[in-house]
């Protein structure tokens, strides 16, 4: 499919407005865009729940410590429109790589964006950074 023309200027206008909420809560309060994280591990569970789904995977760090990571993502309806199939796309035991951003509270909680499967294909599990937190500028002029 040819890449559609991209209304970049409209996006800039939106960003300056302070984007309308696209999800039901603030990304930026809970997660830190300055802490991107990429984890490869074995899926232990997927919770298809509202308002957000959760993806859990066991991963081993460089020092050999095993941890269970929890990634927040889209609600089930958005996941299905994104191409996810509940019993097909990912099952416990599958090895995947998840890119996202870590929680400000630390630990092994993160916000997901892109999932890469064993065959190299990719799907988004969550929205981009900055969702719902007001974007880069407030809706009002700063005095």
């Amino acid at each position: 499919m040819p890449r559609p023309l991209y209304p970049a200027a409209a996006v800039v206008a939106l960003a300056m407005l302070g984007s309308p909420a696209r999800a039901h809560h603030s990304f930026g309060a809970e997660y830190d865009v300055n802490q991107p994280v990429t984890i490869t591990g074995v899926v232990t569970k997927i919770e298809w729940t509202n308002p957000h789904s959760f993806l859990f995977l066991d991963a081993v760090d460089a020092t050999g410590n095993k941890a269970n990571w929890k990634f927040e993502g889209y609600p089930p309806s958005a996941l299905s429109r994104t191409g996810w199939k509940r019993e097909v796309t990912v099952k416990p035991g599958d090895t995947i790589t998840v890119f996202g951003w870590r929680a400000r509270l630390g630990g092994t909680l993160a916000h997901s964006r892109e999932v890469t499967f064993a065959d190299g294909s990719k799907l988004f599990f969550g929205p981009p950074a900055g969702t719902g937190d007001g974007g880069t500028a407030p809706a009002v002029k700063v005095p």
Partner: protein
Amino acid sequence: MMRAALIVAFVVAGSSMAIRAQAPARPASSAAVQAAVPRAADGKPDLTGVWQGGSNRPGKWEDANNGLGVGGTGKDPNAPPSLGSQQVVTTPAPYQPWAAARVLESFNKRGIDDPAALCLPPGVPRLALVSLFPIEVVQTPQKVVFMYEYMNVFRSIPITAQHPPDIVPTYLGDSIARWDGDTLVVDITGFNDKTWLTGTGTFHSEALHVIERYTRVSRDQIDYEATIDDPKVLTGPWTIRTTMMLRDGTRVQEYVCAENNQDPAQYERLLKEGVSFRR
């Protein structure tokens, strides 16, 4: 001042680019475009269908959102991280100085005080601008019904009715509609003060009055405009425009927000533990 001028410039540029992006290979005559607008038995434009607000891309959901993150398929790992199909045009909100300070405080708190984070209904026009979730419209000669996947709320709007004399304030207010030529005009009053209008912190009072205009300009597109007035917090009307795009084949689904809402507890932990999250 410079910043305001910049915003206006971007808005104008954005609008013209959006129009160019949608232009057919050959210019269609205005009569041809008119003919392409589906009409109901009573001759009015028929808004019936499943729509995506905040978008300007025609096509099925999966094609229009491919790789851009609004339910994008993620097939293009190099797609820009921003929501490219978002198409919302506005100017800075004309809040009174005291109210602007409150909006700014919410922005600096990164929207941690968003009522929707508690799974409460989003307000108007916010509902029309949330592009992650579809909106189903069913139109009859007597009423127009909007069913929103986001928070699973609905508005059943009578045509040519009057507002009731004693309205108990609600999240989505009391809506009545009329036709102005080919434009459906919805007048909304009777709001409570518990929603945000659209962007982070955009609160309002119970004096809020919103007029929405829906104009189906082609088979694929509704032009949407909301004029917001609230004399208790704004200095004058605030107008927001977007386009709603037809999404053939998309169905509005269940969204029970209270099912597993872990975010308020996370916010409480942030505050309790003194974790830095402000801008």
